[in-house]
């Protein structure tokens, strides 16, 4: 066995996995606060990336300004989506909610492509493409930066959940009625979680855009991030990070050895099979609350 190859696959997988985790965190945030599985998450990442491009290409803002501007825009978009699409479905059967997020996914993708066209664009972060050797292992600078940012986002969220506003958000995800009874604005809390998710999607969109270009394929991140979220336990943030790394490594190593045999494309298969096995064997994931299975 070639240990260098294995380590390289694993290390790169872990780093990519953290990038998946960043998207998964958004899913977890929304699911935690409102039990809505957001199947429009991939589209949200794509919209975030295009929003950055809109601010930098159309308005000519430098990147360091375009990204925060896009984050502000996405914050508003998140609130708008919650208020106008999801809030009115509260209490409806899960199939309606799923269909709503699917419709949202189609709508967001359609409207973004109508505005920007279908051809892929570059997201230039000014990070050099030169390979980076860590020991004998070859790694990508963009990926590494993205992974570091993912960990920072996670740390920021952990800190946020210690603040009073964060505690209220956790209270909401714990018990709606009790939250209402002590005057916590549940609707505002859920809207805030959508807004935060949209902001994090923007950051994820920036890095995924830098990695693979900005186009419709960004929305395909849905299946991977969903798998990460479910594997970690849909309502667990640390779970998303751990599961992200796990899935990244698994995907990279398995496809690294399998691809030459089956002629490529086994990454998607690994992800889909992981999702199926997780749901069938341990629906509440690695760290999730067992009771979520009931939903």
């Amino acid at each position, binding site marked *: 066995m070639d240990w260098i190859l294995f380590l390289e696959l694993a290390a790169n997988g872990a780093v990519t996995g953290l990038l998946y985790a960043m998207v998964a965190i958004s899913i977890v945030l929304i699911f935690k606060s409102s039990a809505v599985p957001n199947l429009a998450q991939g589209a949200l990442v794509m919209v975030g990336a295009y929003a950055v491009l809109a601010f930098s290409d159309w308005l000519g803002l430098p990147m360091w300004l375009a990204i925060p501007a896009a984050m502000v825009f996405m914050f508003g978009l998140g609130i708008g989506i919650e208020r106008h699409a999801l809030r009115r479905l509260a209490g409806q059967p899960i199939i309606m909610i799923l269909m709503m997020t699917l419709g949202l996914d189609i709508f967001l993708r359609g409207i973004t492509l109508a505005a920007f066209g279908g051809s892929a664009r570059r997201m230039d972060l000014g990070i050099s493409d030169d390979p980076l050797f860590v020991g004998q292992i070859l790694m990508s600078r963009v990926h590494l930066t993205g992974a570091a940012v993912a960990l920072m986002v996670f740390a920021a969220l952990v800190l946020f959940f210690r603040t009073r506003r964060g*505690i209220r958000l956790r209270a909401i995800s714990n018990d709606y009625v*009790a939250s209402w009874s*002590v005057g916590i604005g549940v609707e505002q809390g859920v809207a805030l979680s959508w807004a935060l998710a949209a902001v994090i999607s923007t950051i994820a969109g920036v890095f995924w855009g830098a990695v693979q270009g900005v186009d419709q394929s960004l929305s395909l991140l849905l299946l991977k991030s969903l798998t990460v979220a479910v594997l970690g336990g849909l309502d667990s943030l640390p779970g998303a990070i751990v599961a992200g790394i796990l899935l990244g490594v698994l995907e990279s190593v398995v496809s690294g050895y399998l691809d030459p045999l089956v002629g490529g494309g086994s990454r998607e298969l690994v992800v889909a099979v992981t999702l199926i096995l997780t749901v069938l064997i341990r629906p509440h994931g690695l760290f999730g609350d067992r009771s979520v299975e009931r939903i």
Partner: protein
Amino acid sequence: MTTASAEPLLSLRNVEVVYDNVSLAVSGVSLDVPEGQLIALLGANGAGKSTTLRSISGLLQAARGKVTRGEIRYAGQLVNTLSPQDRVKLGIVQVLEGRHVFEQLTTNENLEAACPVEMSRAEMRSALDRAYTFFPRLAERRNATSGYLSGGEQQMLAIARALMTRPRMLMLDEPSLGLSPMLTTEIFSIIRRINREEGISVLLVEQNAFAALDLVSHGYLIESGRVVMHDTATAMKNNPDIQEFYLGGHGVNFRDIKHYRRRKRWLT
């Protein structure tokens, strides 16, 4: 009647509540809670006690219920249409039936979650201290995950959490549910202290009518969604009907039932 101030803090007039647009749970309840008083709301299972409390706190929406008739006045203001959040801001708070604590949060975080956002850090600390002086047991377990507290401790936490909203009127829905008689006594004495020391008016719903009537000044008896009796606590305790049917008196006798039914019809 007592000689309480002319205008009670809370007054319900002919309140009617309908769940799911069809099932009538409360029909024409009227009651008053004078400022600074302890009032009990008694009744059998399903009589409509919790529903009445929900109509006051605004939590009916969460249960797909609606106030379809009547007025709910609080401090002179009509609050029928206010959101639960706004009612909490006005000082109305309800402690839910069956200990709804935020199970994944610690004791301390449960209390912090209930703090109004505009409260400063220092104010919050003093509010926390005050809550812990009422419930010293909670202070010992302030960093424990509240889902793992005992039933009695969770009930205390739910009351303490309600206090954090700085209420003027506290509504308690069966605080003795599932607690030992000793713990019930302890909680009731704390409720009395809260009422005396903080001047908070209390509306208490209880199955445990004996204990409740020892605590309060007045009581209302509600049955099938209607108020069938309203009197001072002493009078209610001595009322033969109450003794018979709610406090468990001597053997039931049919003449008494008839008597009671007649009386009830007359009252409603």
